[in-house]
């Protein structure tokens, strides 16, 4: 193998190693980017929607209490506005199903909310329900707590998933950085070995040639550098040998 090819092969291997490490890092970093986006898209949006749903439910609960105390206008106004907020937040959550079992939670929320809504949708002021704390505690509050529990379950699912994604991000960042560190360390070791081999295929034979030519000149010894490589330096050794033989003649 020619010296040029040998050196080129060494450099090509270093370049290959660095290129692969670079590609790996780019791939892992792009995955981090996607994970961050997924974290926002998948979980954060649902978490915000869940918070809005809980807030709306609490307002509805207050609205029912106002109706029980006979304040029809204020009570109905709060209930209608909270219902609208709940439904819009629910729509966001329903259109953002990203986790396993999330659909089941959405269905449970829908069912429990409809049950809760069916209670306060009926007239309260001017009926036997007005001023009835027993009715509130047995029917309204129970349904309210059920609906709130289901929304909280959805929140918990997304929070857990968010935590897992965030933990995974830490690993991904290590995976993105490590190839670079490994590539740099490997390249350093590689260069040390490469330097050794350059010495082996270039410097050592050249030294042998110099010593042999010196011996020939100084002591008129037969020229022999004893180069074992089959490359340009071997050709040079043969040519010098021919030259010395011609000179001897």
């Amino acid at each position, binding site marked *: *193998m020619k010296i040029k090819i040998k050196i080129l092969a060494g450099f090509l*291997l270093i370049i*290959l190693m660095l290129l692969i490490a670079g590609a790996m890092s780019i791939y892992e970093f792009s995955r981090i980017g996607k994970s961050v986006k997924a974290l926002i898209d998948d979980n954060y949006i649902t978490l915000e929607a869940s918070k809005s749903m809980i807030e709306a439910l609490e307002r509805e609960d207050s609205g029912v209490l106002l109706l029980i105390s006979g304040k029809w206008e204020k009570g109905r106004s709060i209930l209608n506005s909270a219902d609208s907020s709940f439904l819009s937040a629910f729509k966001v959550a329903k259109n953002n199903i990203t986790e396993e079992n999330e659909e089941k939670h959405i269905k449970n929320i829908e069912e429990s909310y409809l049950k809760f809504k069916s209670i306060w949708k009926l007239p309260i002021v001017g009926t036997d329900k007005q001023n009835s704390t027993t009715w509130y505690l047995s029917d309204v509050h129970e349904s309210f707590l059920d609906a709130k529990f289901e929304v909280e379950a959805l929140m918990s699912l997304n929070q857990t998933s968010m935590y897992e994604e965030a933990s995974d991000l*830490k*690993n991904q960042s290590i*995976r993105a950085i490590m190839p670079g560190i490994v590539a740099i360390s*490997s390249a350093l070791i590689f260069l040390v070995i*490469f330097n*050794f081999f350059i010495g082996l295929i270039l410097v050592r034979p050249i030294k042998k040639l110099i010593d042999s030519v010196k011996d020939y000149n100084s002591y008129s010894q037969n020229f022999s550098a004893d180069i074992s490589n089959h490359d340009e330096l071997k050709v040079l050794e043969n040519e010098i040998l021919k030259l010395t033989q011609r000179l001897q003649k």
Partner: protein
Amino acid sequence: MNLRTEIVIRHIGLVLIFNAIFLFISFLISLFLVETSVIALLYSSLVALIFGLFPLIYVKPTHYLSILEGTSIVVFGWIATCLIGSLPYTLWGGEFSFINAWFESVSGFTTTGSTVINNIEALPKGLLFWRSSTHWIGGIGVVLFTILILPGSNTSRFVLLNTEMSQLAKTNFKYRAKEILRILLYVYVGLTILETILLKFAGMTLFDAINHSFATIATGGFSTKNLSISYYNSVTIEIIIIVFMILSGVHFGLTFNTIIGNKKNIFRSSIFKAYILILFIGVLLVSLKLYYSEIYPWWESVRHAAFQVVSLGTTTGFATVDTGHWPSFTQIILIYFTIQCAMIGSTSGGLKFDRIYIFFKSIKKQIRSIQHPNAVISLKIDGNSINEKTELHAMIFIILYIGIIFITTMLLSFLNVDIFTAFSSSAATIGNVGPGFGNVSSLGNYSNLPDLGKFILTLNMLLGRLEIYGIISLFFIKSWR
């Protein structure tokens, strides 16, 4: 003595190419299962391949190796292998810091089986396969495996075989280097395939069966489950593993001779008989203590005692129970087996039973020479005279071995590790056993030890695997001249 660095680097390169093949298989598993370790395994495989191929461009093969070159290839080959082996762990992340990855890699290749991982089942299957592969590659000897598979001259094979294999191990191999290597390969691969099939039929998944076979035949101990073998709670699986642990702890030459019907078989080997007797006594004593301490009913006591004694006595390190909660008497017996280890010529590391056998025979010889001062008494094993040089070698080895355990215990104690944990982990790592007692008991792990402590223990593992002298001799470069 002449040291041609380029020749050493070339041979280490071949070892790395061999590792690259197994890393690539692990990568294919990860790729097939779409796991997070795909890139880590692929990159590690490529780095190993590049480092392995690189010297082949510049250095021509040689037909002759000096002993110094052979020793350098074996020692540095092991270190390079362990470094490359830690790459997929480091790149994957999770619980693997650099020191944890190095620990897991050294523990794998030296077939120690100690782990620093708390949740093994969380690891991707490709990485788990690599973890078990390190056992399998290391079990027969990294360099031996390489010269077995990859091309090389007979002369260089002979030097490497002499360097990596214990001198005592060759007493039962009356063959040429090439034949010894062939026998090793046949027995090793044959036992692995057979155990895999049996474990599969006993109820393990194929993946688990392969991984546990790798770990058993190499006397390693890495499991794919957090609860090790206790996860399966199956007497059949335990019996299969016990049988194969014993077979893997026996000199491979003896096993081969038994299979082909040669006279020098296991039934005629006094060392084998003594080894089995000691194991039997160990099982009996531990069973009795467990039963009378009312820890388990009788058969349950025998079941767990048999598994644990054989597991530690063959340096495998699998577990069916947490022996850390057993009575002190049973723990002392298990510590004895941790120090004793299995037979020379097997895949186990550490002190080896043969040396203890020679030690007791020497004591007997000394007593007889005191009784009969003028008599010429020679030490014989199965009709073969053991020369005084071998006897002395065994004695010095035992002293050195105990000395290293003592020094490592002291160093770990200095790092505030409690004395029981320090001692048992030192003995378990130099013996390539795996689990110790205290904080590193059979179902526990080494994750809580300080990083420096973990590093010291990896040196212990390498010393145990390379039979101490290999590594130490490299520190005395001048005496090679």
